[in-house]
């Protein structure tokens, strides 16, 4: 029984559905109110986030536009994000294939190992890597810089790609690949024509989450960046402390939020399953 609306059966009572909708609305409000505060503050004449706002000005937006430090930091963050995502894509999918398609001793260990960088607190990862670089790698000539930042980010971005690809591989099963090989396609051809298209959207979802995580990461970055590299979060950190610069940070944040809708929306269109991707 139950009338069908938009093709799906009604499975919960109206009361339950209304209650859930209410919680959803409240949840979304909770999530977005502080962001609105940020947006409004970026127009506030008062530099120290007083409330209610004392005046309206677009001065901060103008100054943000001309702020070189912000632009450089943005570029550095993008570079770091792309680097970390690339590494994560390669390593994550390789590990996912290994775990999904093969039975071997220590398969569970691989899963845990991949999760570990993101499961352990950022500060632990941060000081571990920083210490390792200072004691073991600097004598070898590896210096703090963009490279160390990328490596640091890659360690916890791998799991995001890994989970998405693994979930997809588990769902599609290996039979298509077997069939392809039975028909005479080699390993590489099978990958190109059969496997890759199947996991492509999982790769995109994973890549997007990895990039987002790397882009906003501050704790591990603080410890692996050194003096010369400033990613956007580091720039924000040092500028939120300075009275004249703090409102500019609000502007940067507001811009990021508005711009980020685009890639997120795109990834949703591309991915065939509506799940937001595996964390």
């Amino acid at each position, binding site marked *: 029984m139950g009338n069908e609306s938009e093709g799906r059966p009604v499975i919960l009572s109206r009361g339950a559905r209304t209650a859930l909708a209410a919680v959803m609305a409240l949840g979304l409000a909770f999530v977005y109110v502080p962001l609105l505060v940020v947006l409004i503050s970026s127009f506030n004449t008062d530099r*120290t986030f007083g409330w209610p706002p004392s005046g309206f000005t677009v001065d901060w937006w103008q100054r943000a536009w001309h702020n070189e430090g912000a632009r450089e930091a943005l570029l550095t963050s993008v570079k770091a994000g792309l680097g970390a995502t690339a590494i994560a894509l390669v390593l994550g999918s390789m590990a996912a294939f290994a775990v999904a398609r093969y039975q071997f001793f220590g398969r569970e260990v691989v899963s845990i190992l991949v999760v570990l960088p993101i499961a352990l607190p950022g500060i632990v990862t941060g000081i571990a890597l920083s210490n390792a670089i*200072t004691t073991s790698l600097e004598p070898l000539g590896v210096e703090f810089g963009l490279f160390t930042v990328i490596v640091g980010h890659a360690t916890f971005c791998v799991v995001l790609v890994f989970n998405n690809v693994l979930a997809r591989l588990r769902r599609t099963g290996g039979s298509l690949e077997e069939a392809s090989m039975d028909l005479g396609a080699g390993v590489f051809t099978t990958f190109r024509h059969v496997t890759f298209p199947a996991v492509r959207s999982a790769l995109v979802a994973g890549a997007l989450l990895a990039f987002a995580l790397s882009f906003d990461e501050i704790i591990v970055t603080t410890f692996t960046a050194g003096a010369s590299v400033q990613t956007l979060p580091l720039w924000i950190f040092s500028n939120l402390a300075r009275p004249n610069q703090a409102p500019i940070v609000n502007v940067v944040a507001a811009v990021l939020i508005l711009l980020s809708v685009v890639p997120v929306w795109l990834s949703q269109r591309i991915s065939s399953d509506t799940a937001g991707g595996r964390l």
Partner: protein
Amino acid sequence: MTRTKLLAITAAALIALTACGDDGGDDASADGGDTGTSTDQGFTPPDLKALDKLGEPEGEVNIVAWAGYVEDGSTDPAVDWVTPFEEETGCQVNVKTAPTSDDMVNLMKTGQYDVVSASGDASLRLIASGDVEPVNTDLVPNYADVFEALKMKPWNSVDGVAYGIPHGRGANLLMYNTEVVSPAPDSWSAVFDDASANSGKVTAYDSPIYIADAAVYLMATQPDLGIENPYALDDEQFQAAVDLLKEQNAHIGEYWSDYTKEIQAFKNGDSVVGTTWQIIVNLAQADKAKVDAVLPKEGATGWSDTWMVATKSEHKTCAYKWMDHIISPTANAQVAEWFGEAPSNSKSCAETADAKHCETFHADDEAYFDQVWYWTTPISQCLDGRTDVQCKDYGDWTTAWQEIKG
């Protein structure tokens, strides 16, 4: 199942093992008191040489400094003594502000910075660890005009060897909200014995060195403890200071190390009384906060800062040029007025915008600064000269500070 049990048993065994066993004791391996050329600072500095002569400016200089010391116009367009320096020498200035001396020592350890504005509680540590080298004062022409009282002091020299260029000095003040805290306080009791009047809105500097402020208060209120020097505290004196601070903790709203957070807190009314620097008072007042500051009658802790050159610096010429610039009469006057401290260059008193600046800040008044206890690193060899007891060293202060914050 068995694996988790094994893990639990191992963990428990490990904990039991470490909890028992005799206390290895922390040896103060800092004293080089027995070997060769020791100093009365209680350690032997590494054998390093100062720079011989200046070369070509290297094009950049990386500075670790207190917020407000290296202004390039980004805080306030009218406040800029960096751009003239960059234009004159071609040395691009990259500054990293640090909130506490501990952070500065740490940053200098990375070897990525060239020059640092070290307070007395950082300078000796930097010298002892070899992170900074002696300074050749002949290469700094403006050094000749520095007040004699600041040259070759225990915190910026060892065994007659100069390790830095004096920057300026000042005292930590008591800031209060003029509307909430009235009548105007004149004693540190506002944050200690009487802190309960403003419970939850008291603030204090977030660094172990703040223990000295409690000791300064005890010098006046509990003279039978016999504290002569707030950085030379034996077990009993130290415990008294720590207890005082634990009592204070109950009334603290938040500790501050980032000066903008303190400005915001006073502006919002989240903090109404606490320690401060003059620059914070100035900026808060400029932002229409109803605050004022006073040097309480018990005296105060303070700082006498020194510019020091990193041993591993790759930009030493620019570093020396920066030091010469920052103590030049004009720049030294500018920074002293902006930060609210006494300048180190005697000629800058003629260049301050406020003609009475040097007078207000007691630039030449040694009697005044006798009441100000410059930040100094506590060591186990008592700084007040006592030899019959061991004093608490900075490691003890750090551990105690974490306990105080709870």
